[in-house]
């Protein structure tokens, strides 16, 4: 008899538990407005929560975009900029037009890493740590140290480190332009450039006089102006203060003249497949 009472009471607890779940399941309404829409947008986003758009993750961005569709045209979500298929879907879902091309950004490493290593560094494998000792272990104090801080922070696997030259390479296709690496680099040598940039300028050495760059690195810009003079399409202007070239991709014809004349091979085509 006692057993029966026990069983009934315990079953009643089970019933209550089931009932509680059921009631919550049935009665708690979806309180977040437009949750379905937000979910739909959220699924289109990369889901990496990289924060490049300026919101706390993809879901937060989706929420904002649903409330204010125009935002999509000005935010810098890597998906908006990279994947044209997704951009179309987003345009349909939100009812706005997005000029993805104009907003796209890519990360560019302004160093070839060719500067000679002057001592063996065996400390904590992080650029931030390495830079504390004599401004890094390379002859050029502004060089890419290649300890992989940017590689670790990249959520899209776009960065690889060349272990020989100790320098970072960014895969143009995989790069979504989120800018995390640019924020992470202690040398500040990763620059976010417009996606249509044609010529990569691979030197970060900012000082004009003191010590001429070429002593420090075989790929250094020696401020010779040859590229500026070589360009027949006015796609290169000369910035006098820093004494470096400035490139204008809209006029560039990808002729490759500037790259050929550069004595130290500081210039490169930015995107693989450009030029030849």
């Amino acid at each position, binding site marked *: 008899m006692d057993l029966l009472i*026990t069983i009934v009471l*315990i079953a009643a607890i089970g019933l209550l*538990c089931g009932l509680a*779940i059921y009631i*919550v399941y049935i009665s*708690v309404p979806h*309180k*977040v407005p437009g949750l379905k829409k937000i979910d739909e947008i959220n699924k289109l986003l990369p889901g990496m929560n990289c924060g490049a758009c300026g919101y706390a993750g993809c879901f937060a961005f989706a929420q904002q975009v649903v409330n204010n569709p125009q935002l999509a045209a000005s935010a810098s979500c890597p998906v908006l900029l990279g994947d044209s298929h997704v951009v179309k879907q987003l345009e349909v879902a939100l009812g706005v037009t997005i000029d993805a091309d104009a907003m796209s950004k890519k990360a560019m490493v302004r160093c070839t890493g060719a500067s000679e290593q002057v001592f063996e560094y065996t400390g904590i*494998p*992080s650029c931030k740590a390495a830079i504390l000792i004599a401004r890094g272990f390379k002859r050029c104090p502004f060089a890419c140290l290649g300890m992989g801080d940017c590689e670790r922070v990249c959520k899209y696997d776009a960065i690889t480190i060349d272990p020989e030259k100790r320098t970072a390479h960014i895969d143009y296709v995989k790069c979504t332009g989120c800018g995390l690496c640019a924020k992470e680099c202690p040398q500040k040598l990763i620059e976010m450039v417009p996606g249509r940039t044609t010529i990569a300028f691979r030197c970060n050495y900012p000082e004009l006089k003191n010590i001429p760059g070429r002593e420090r690195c075989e790929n250094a810009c020696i401020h010779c102006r040859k590229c500026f003079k070589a360009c027949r399409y006015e796609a290169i202007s000369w910035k006098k203060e820093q004494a470096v070239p400035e490139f204008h991709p809209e006029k560039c014809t990808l002729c490759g003249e500037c790259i050929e004349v550069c004595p130290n091979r500081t210039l490169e085509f930015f995107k693989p497949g450009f030029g030849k």
Partner: protein
Amino acid sequence: MTDLLAIFIGMALINNFVLVKFLGLCPFFGVSKKLTNAFSMSMAVTFVMLMASAVTWPITHYILIPLDAEYLRTVVYILVIATLVQIIELFIMRTNYSLYSAFGIYLALITTNCAVMGVTLVNTDEGFTFVESMVSALGAGTGFGLVLVLMSGIRERLEISQLPDSMKGLPVAFLVAALMGLAFSGFAGMV
């Protein structure tokens, strides 16, 4: 009041659930890779511990003990905990989605978190009153959170340190836990 303080410190430090009693180890090693995740997880665990203690206490003292059916406590407790977790999960998912996207994945882990079940069992074993049970749940949650946050801080550092390949990841986390455990055994005898 001093009794309650003694229970709190006892649960949080001396009998720390993770390092001394080995409860809640799966999340301890699973969710301690990043500091922010560890913090969210420990908040969620503490919350569920408090809820579970509050619900299981009356069940124990008004149903199981009068019926002389304490052998059923495992079934009843885990049923209640699983239900609670599911309700909280549903509720948060529907009302505050951004909170859910931050806590949701951890809630699912909590059903099988020995620490939550452990705190309800300890409360019954020690014969705590309702208030004492709540304090012990709070203490256990705090201790769990403290250790989880400490551990994740250390692991974030370990990520960039040079280790033999076979030591990377879990093995070194265990060794760190061992050292932390030694440190925590120093709290014994405090109360």
